[in-house]
């Protein structure tokens, strides 16, 4: 049967006019749905043409249906190649965009399209410039439509997730080769980023954005909206978005005065528990490496890191202290956080009444100076009054039970203004640290000598009376 079909097809190709009836057989085989004959209008040739056009349209729909309907992967791949052949052959020398767009949309929007189809499309056809250009156009249009639909129905459509995933795979810097491509590519990306993206794809996009996308866009500043929205999500997403903004600010002239404020807000205790904390703090180090940050901002960051170190796990405390050290070394004006020279004894104020309105702050900084004026909850570093405070937290961390933490705090005892004798702490080895790595390093440490406990009166029980104070609340 297939043999005869192929014979029919070959005969039709060799002599289309005399073998025109073969087409009817073939079409009947492909589209089993019979079509009622239309009333005859005009001459026979026009009728034939109309019929042929109808049949052709039905064929295209059927081929798209094969892909979207979830046929066997091999059938889907054949259907795609047939469609692409038709796109090429429809108008000799021209790209049949009208045929191509619905075909590509069928591929993209279908959840049943086999991965083989996608890969065949990417490998075989995307090398052609015209295919590439029209693909980007179709992508932009499809994304815009999805975004509009999502905006209309506020809950995100589940059907768009695979599409978004595939579009992400298409996004390749190679596509932006010439200016037309670049424009189409930028449009596709912007449309894509306007869509509501699921979390994993969102993270993927953010990770690659500043390196793979941003430099090739026609106008990178158009990404600002996307990035500020991402920043509101917080966590590593926020930090990645901040990286994008950082690139925009440093390379593309974006004005973003609240940059360090946003960074400040991202530093929370949860950051130490996150799985990607290494990347998070790596980026934070990049942002804070500038020496042009005002001293009050640097002081606020130092204070914030010190506060975090108080409650963080030992590995996090190590990172935090390293940050504090590097900040204080980069900003000598922050040295007062570690060393506040005692004020010369003020002469007795002749007018005590003038002292009264100075109020609480003065009283705090006055005799004891023990009140921490740092406002932890203030979102803006400028309002935190960190520069008036002291890093008592580090003094407490000297007694941290983890000896490595205590040792790192000892580094801060040096005069950080001495540029020759101090060096910045390299964060890279500290970032991947965890409980397990610290405990392993302690366990594999060479034993020089092992002191054993000495008791004036050796305990007679495992839970002795002597340690009852520590085990308060336990019946010993």
């Amino acid at each position: 049967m297939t043999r005869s079909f192929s014979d029919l097809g070959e005969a039709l190709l060799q002599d289309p006019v005399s073998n025109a009836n073969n087409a009817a057989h073939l079409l009947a085989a492909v589209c089993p749905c019979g079509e009622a004959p239309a009333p005859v209008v005009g001459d026979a040739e026009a009728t034939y043409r109309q019929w042929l056009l109808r049949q052709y349209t039905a064929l295209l729909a059927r081929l798209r249906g094969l892909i979207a309907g979830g046929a066997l992967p091999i059938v889907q791949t054949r259907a795609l190649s047939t469609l692409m052949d038709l796109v090429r052959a429809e108008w000799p020398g021209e790209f049949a965009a009208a045929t191509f767009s619905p075909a590509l949309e069928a591929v993209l929007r279908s959840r049943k399209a086999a991965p083989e189809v996608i890969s065949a499309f990417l490998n075989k056809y995307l090398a052609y410039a015209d295919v590439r250009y029209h693909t980007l156009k179709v992508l932009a249009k499809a994304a815009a439509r999805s975004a509009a639909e999502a905006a209309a129905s506020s809950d995100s459509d589940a059907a768009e997730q695979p599409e978004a995933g595939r579009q992400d795979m298409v996004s390749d810097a190679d596509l932006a080769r010439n200016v037309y491509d670049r424009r189409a590519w930028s449009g596709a990306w912007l449309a894509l980023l306007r869509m509501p993206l699921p979390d994993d794809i969102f993270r993927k996009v953010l990770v690659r954005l500043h390196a793979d996308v941003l430099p090739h866009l026609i106008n990178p500043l158009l990404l600002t909206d996307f990035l500020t929205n991402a920043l509101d999500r917080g966590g590593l997403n926020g930090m990645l978005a901040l990286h994008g903004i950082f690139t925009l600010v440093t390379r593309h002239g974006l004005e973003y005065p609240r940059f360090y404020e946003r960074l400040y807000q991202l530093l929370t205790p949860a950051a130490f528990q996150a799985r990607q904390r290494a990347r998070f703090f790596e980026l934070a180090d990049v942002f804070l490496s500038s020496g042009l940050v005002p001293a009050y901002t640097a002081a606020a960051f130092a204070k914030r890191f010190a506060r975090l170190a108080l409650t963080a796990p030992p590995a996090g405390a190590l990172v935090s202290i390293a940050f504090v050290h590097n900040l204080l070394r980069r900003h000598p004006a922050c040295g007062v956080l570690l060393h506040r020279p005692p004020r010369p004894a003020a002469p007795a104020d002749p007018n005590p009444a003038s002292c009264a309105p100075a109020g609480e702050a003065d009283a705090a900084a006055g005799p004891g100076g023990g009140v921490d004026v740092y406002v932890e909850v203030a979102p803006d570093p400028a309002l935190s009054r960190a520069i008036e405070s002291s890093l008592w937290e580090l003094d407490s961390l000297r007694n941290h039970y983890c000896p490595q933490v205590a040792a790192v705090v000892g580094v801060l005892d040096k005069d950080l203004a001495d540029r020759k004798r101090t060096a910045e702490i390299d964060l890279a080895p500290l970032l991947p640290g965890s409980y397990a790595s610290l405990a392993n390093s302690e366990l594999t440490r060479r034993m020089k000598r092992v002191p054993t406990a000495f008791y004036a009166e050796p305990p007679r029980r495992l839970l002795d009376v002597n340690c009852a104070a520590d085990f308060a609340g336990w019946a010993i």
Partner: protein
Amino acid sequence: MAKRRKAPRKAQQAAAAAVSKPAAASNPFERLHSRKKFAILGKRAKGEQRPSGKLRSEAVEKREKTLLVEYKQLRKANAFIDRRFGEDDDTLTAEEKAVARFQKERMKAIGGDRFALGDGEGEELTHLGRFLSEGGLGEAPESSDSDEDGGALDDAVVREFHFGGGFVRKEGAADVSAGSTGAEQDPERRRTKKEVMEEVMAKSKAARSAKREQRAEDLDATDALDAQFAALVAQGGLADLVRPKGSRRDRVAAAAAAAAQAAEDIVFDRARRELVFEAKATVGDRTHTAEELAEAEAQRLQALEAARQRRMRAAPAGVGGDDPDDDCEAAGDKDAAAPAGGYAARRHKRRRAEAAGPSGDALEDDFEVSDGDRGGSGDGSGSEDGEDEDTDEDGGAATGLQARQAARAAGAHPLQQSLRAASAALLRKYGAGAAGGGAGARGAELGSSDAVKASLAALPYLLGLPASYEEFAALVAGRPAEELSAAMGRMRACNAAALSADNRRRLQEFYGVLVQHFALRAGARPLPLDELDVLTVHLLALTPEVPVYAATVARARLQRLLDRLAAALRGSPADGASAWPGARGLLLLKLWATLFPASDRRHAVLTPAALVAGACLALCPLARASDVAQGLFLASLALHLTAPAQRLAPEALTFAVFGKAAALPELLAPAMSALRALGAAGLPQALETQRRGALAALEAAAAARIAARRPLQRRGATSAALARAPAAKMYNPRFEEDYAAGRDNDPDRERAEQRRLKRQLQKEKRGAMRELRKDAVFIGGVRQAEAAAAAAELRGTRRANFAILEQQEADARSGGQGGMFKSRKRGHK
């Protein structure tokens, strides 16, 4: 100024003249010197004043000898070589040249045949330094020839004279030669015998007279001394050196009176007398070393075991003595000192038999022989060997034997009971003194009932260390804590590290076994706390003996805990297994906190242990009630670990620890807010009271800390130090030991060598160019001189010619008068 200049110049001239007169600056330009004004490092410093003028003239001379000669030879086909004597040497005077010429002439004349003998004049053969023509040499042989017995004389002649006479050694040769040479050199010194004898006699006479004189002098001196002594005695000068008779008593009384007057002497005397009454130092018991103590303990246990065995096997009545204390002690002491064999062993055995009475050994031997299952001890050589082997069998986990022992121990015979009570009392008595036995004694104290004592006695006293955990488990399975303690105590005492070098290694294995037992018992339910307690006690005593091994064991277990935690956290929470370490892990952590010092800043065991506890507290999810309990216990444990050194453990935010932390208010803020939030939750009455109390305590502590703390100041940075002006920077000079000017200090030696060669080449090139330039100048000067000489000659010739012509003209004008016109001359005037 002028004077000062003059003086050295004069001195110089004088010096130069003194050194060599002809070299005394014949050329005034040679006196030119380039004097160095400044000392410049790296400049040539050899010879401070270079005689530049002299050098210049030397260079000119050299050129005259070489370059000028070549120049003169230029474009000449032949050369005149002067081979005359001294013609090329300017230093020779004419006289010396003549002498040399004459010498050469003479040498040529006599130097014809080198080996031809002369015609005999002035040349003569010699023998023995004498000319052959002298008569003396030939006389002796001639005179001997004329003698009758010529043979003997011939021999003598041959010996004396042939070949110089030097080949045969002659007696009295030295005398002869001395005599002959003396005669030859100084004929005056040969004296006759009479003369010699006279001389000898004169000498002896002189010596005798000298001796006589000496004797007379000595006699005179003795007489003089005697006279002096007599005079001294007569004057009484020696009276005070001699004690007269009967004067003794007076002198003692005088001395006593003098001593009474000296106060210090009184004090001394009193002290001396008091010393008599003071207790004399007596020799005390020596402090025993650890080895000796361990040895004593092992021996005590050995004795006890022997007694036990004896009691176990002995007949029920009247055997083993009524006084088990004495018996045991005596047996123990004697066993310890028992010799191995021979007469000493026999004597020892007899003594023992006498001391123990008629019962002991015979009965023992009988019993051993009759007991079937003790085959190894049937040799009858002595009871100790058998006992040892028995002990080994006991250690070898013979549970059947233990059961039999227990059955025997359960026997209610009154004598048996009394024996046991006595042994327990003995144990207590010794346990108080000995280090190793303390635990056993304590175990006895803890369980004071008779049953416990009975079971204690049932344990063998000599226990080997178990080779594996199974062995140990079989030994202690089902035993109460007191017996466990006693067993461990005996094992440790019998195998103390001080007893044998190998014991330490075996104790390490034993330690591992104990920790394993602890871990297994800690996982049991219900928790056998009393067993864990006694295990803790023994581990605590054992850890200082094998600290590194203990740490290794603990670290291995910690690593396992950590791995387990990581695996549990990686797995999904739906697995059901809790990530918390469980009772076993918690109790092991507590055990290590007890065994090792928690106050160390970094400890091989406790630092990772604290990290593990912190990881559990921070990472493990709270899924059920038991998790909460474990978490609370871990928090307490973290406190327990950090409290001794007042360290900060953020994971277990507990109040009491951080009393001195500077950031106390900030640390406690979360806890305080949590407590405040709890207030709104509506707690039961009791909890609410506790909450209020805790909150109040926290607030009070925070307020106290705020009031106490001051802004930070860097350690060591005082205000005075800051107020001081910053010190000027000091740079230490860098000295190079082997500095050499101009040396290339490039570390790449090859490159440096290259550069040096290049420099040398440049220098040589410059020198060559300079020489060539000077040569050109010199040759230019020579050519100029030649041209000038040629011009002068030309000029001279011309002048001469003109003079002739003028002469002729004048002659012609004057009409041949030769310019001798008187009138003209006159007229001219």
